[in-house]
């Protein structure tokens, strides 16, 4: 009513003195949704009928997956400009797309390419950015993800996280002939690289803060041990092989320590290990199971899962030790935390009425929001820009990779991986 009065008053003013003052209109509401964007297939000049990678499709897929963009289907493209001079803004305006991406791939030598792209603002009729990148064939996908990042940052103001990687475990085979594999793939699930294969279980991969190394739990020696492996070179070192459980490694933000779960004192507790000298500091002390530690971005405290209250719930404890404080109260099962890069949100597996879903707890409001609707979703991990969460979801008795935008609006399964996928973890920005 107030608003209506306001409008009426403004209208009265405007009518009273036409020409003197512009009609004033307040816009108080907007739409929340994806930015419409068209990514035109890139032009190709080189041998063969087509470029070795469909760069536009990769970009399109990246942008859609983020939940922040709605890409125009190829069949709706009114024209296929590859050059700024061919861009006719009104055509794209009619399709109501805010932005337009065009580009070209040129073969510059054997296995050598040049990829250039330009991003246009259709309604303001401006070119926003344009870059050219040299690339070997194996780097084309990465270049595409990098372009996605540039577009994403230009249009959302947030850093893009497409040119990052995910590590995860798969199991193939069955019965006694099972194979466990640790893989690292692009953020869209493509280009998987095997880091380690074992006939014994592999668990709990964790990225170093610089993104060059992965810590994981392996049962290669029939008992749980924690290794740290350099992703590019494959070299690795054993960091924990204590009696009992050696599990759930988590790198400190400064990269000097790992938090881990050990049961060497009889009961699973959270410890901190200084990597330089492998010295240990016990952080929790309860008769219950304390596990799955993660560091807050400032490195001052850790969040972990404990069933000390009767059911698995999240607790927070200072990195210097002391009393743990319970964080979650909704539902009978909240476990497997990951903290957003800005420290404001905690993702977890939220179990209620027999369904396990990914939920996000807002640390400021204390509200819990369920983002997924699977039956057995697990292992949430924030993208390094905090906009998305990758997780594993059950698809007919096997796990597959899936990603959900932090607002829960966009959810998508990633490219189908072989085997049963578990425990995906998103790399930090560092690895590029």
């Amino acid at each position, binding site marked *: 009513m107030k608003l209506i009065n306001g*409008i009426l008053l403004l209208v009265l003013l405007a*009518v009273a003195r036409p020409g003197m003052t512009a*009609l004033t*209109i307040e*816009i108080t*509401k907007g*739409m929340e949704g994806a930015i419409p964007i068209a990514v035109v297939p890139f032009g190709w000049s080189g041998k063969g009928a087509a470029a070795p990678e469909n760069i536009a499709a990769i970009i399109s897929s990246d942008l859609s997956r983020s939940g922040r963009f709605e890409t125009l289907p190829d069949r709706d493209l009114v024209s296929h400009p590859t050059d700024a001079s061919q861009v006719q803004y009104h055509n794209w305006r009619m399709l109501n797309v805010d932005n337009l991406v065009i580009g070209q791939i040129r073969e510059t030598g054997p296995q050598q390419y040049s990829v250039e792209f330009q991003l246009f*603002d259709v309604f303001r009729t401006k070119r926003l950015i344009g870059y050219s990148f040299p690339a070997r064939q194996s780097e084309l996908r990465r270049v595409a993800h990098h372009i996605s990042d540039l577009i994403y940052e230009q*249009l959302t103001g*947030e850093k893009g996280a497409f040119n990052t990687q995910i590590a995860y475990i798969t199991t193939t085979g069955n019965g006694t002939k099972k194979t466990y594999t640790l893989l690292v793939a692009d953020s869209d699930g493509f280009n998987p690289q095997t880091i380690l294969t074992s006939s014994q279980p592999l668990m709990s991969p964790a990225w170093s803060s610089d993104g060059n190394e992965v810590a994981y739990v392996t049962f290669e020696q029939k008992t749980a041990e924690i290794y740290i492996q350099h992703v590019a070179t494959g070299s690795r070192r054993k960091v924990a092989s204590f009696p009992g459980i050696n599990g759930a490694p988590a790198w400190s933000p400064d990269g000097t320590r790992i938090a881990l779960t050990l049961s060497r004192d009889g009961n699973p507790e959270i410890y901190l290990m200084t990597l330089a000298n492998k010295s240990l500091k016990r952080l929790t002390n309860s008769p219950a199971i304390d596990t799955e530690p993660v560091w807050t971005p400032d490195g001052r405290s850790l969040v972990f899962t404990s069933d000390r209250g009767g059911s698995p719930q999240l607790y927070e404890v200072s990195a210097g030790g002391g009393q743990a404080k319970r964080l979650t109260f909704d539902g009978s099962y909240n476990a497997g935390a990951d903290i957003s890069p800005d420290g404001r949100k905690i993702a977890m597996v939220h179990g209620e009425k027999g369904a396990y879903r990914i939920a996000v707890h807002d640390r400021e409001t204390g509200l819990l929001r369920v983002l997924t609707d699977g039956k057995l979703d697990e292992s949430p991990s924030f993208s390094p820009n905090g906009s998305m969460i990758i997780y594993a979801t059950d698809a007919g008795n096997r796990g597959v990779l899936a990603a959900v935008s932090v607002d829960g609006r966009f959810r998508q399964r990633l490219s189908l991986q072989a085997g049963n996928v578990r425990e995906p973890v998103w790399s930090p920005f560092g690895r590029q």
Partner: protein
Amino acid sequence: MWKIIRENPRAVLYAVLMHLVLLVLLVFSLDWTPKISRPAGVKVPIEAKLIDQRQLESVEEKKKEEQRKREAERKAVEEKKKAEAERKRKAEAEAKRKAEAEAKRKAEAEAKRKAEVKRKTEAEAKRKAEAEAAQRREAELALQQQLAAEQAERDQGVVAEYTAYIQDKIQQNWLKPAGSPEGLSCTVQVSLIPGGDVARVQIVRSSGDPLFDRSVETAVHKASPMPLPKDAAMFKYFRELRLIFKPR
């Protein structure tokens, strides 16, 4: 009859005498001339034929005497008549003069009165006409004002209606950037061309957030053409819009 004679012997005598005279006159006149209408003894000499000199002389004498007498009488009468006539003429002249003067005075007074009446009538008519004209003007003005007020009221209603349409269309086309800080506000000045197409968008007050500003500009362009009233006269209200983007 006798009684009258006895009472008036003189009168009887005179009457007898008069009769005799008349009888004589009658006898003579028979001989004179049948022209009775001709005045006796003025121009035509009377020729006596059958009368002897004496007789004639005495008659003549008598006649002369009588003539003189008559003449005198006639003169007297004439004089009297003349005087009378003169008097009468004078009186008449005087009366006429008086009458004329009176008439003139009256005419002048009448003319004056008439002129006065005319002047008054005319003045009255003029005053009346002027008053009527003024009244008409006033009424017309009032009518015009009323019409203008009614038009303004109608305009106002239409402007309010279309303000709501425009607001709605822009809001439908405004993609608020996700994750932009709260409390941002951006004001743009928008120029429309008839038909509602956006000719120009100018940020007059930036939110300080480039993404927010860009979303605002895009929203305005996307809402083009703006819904406008069909009546082209209404365009004046919509030529320039000031849009305040202020999410609540």
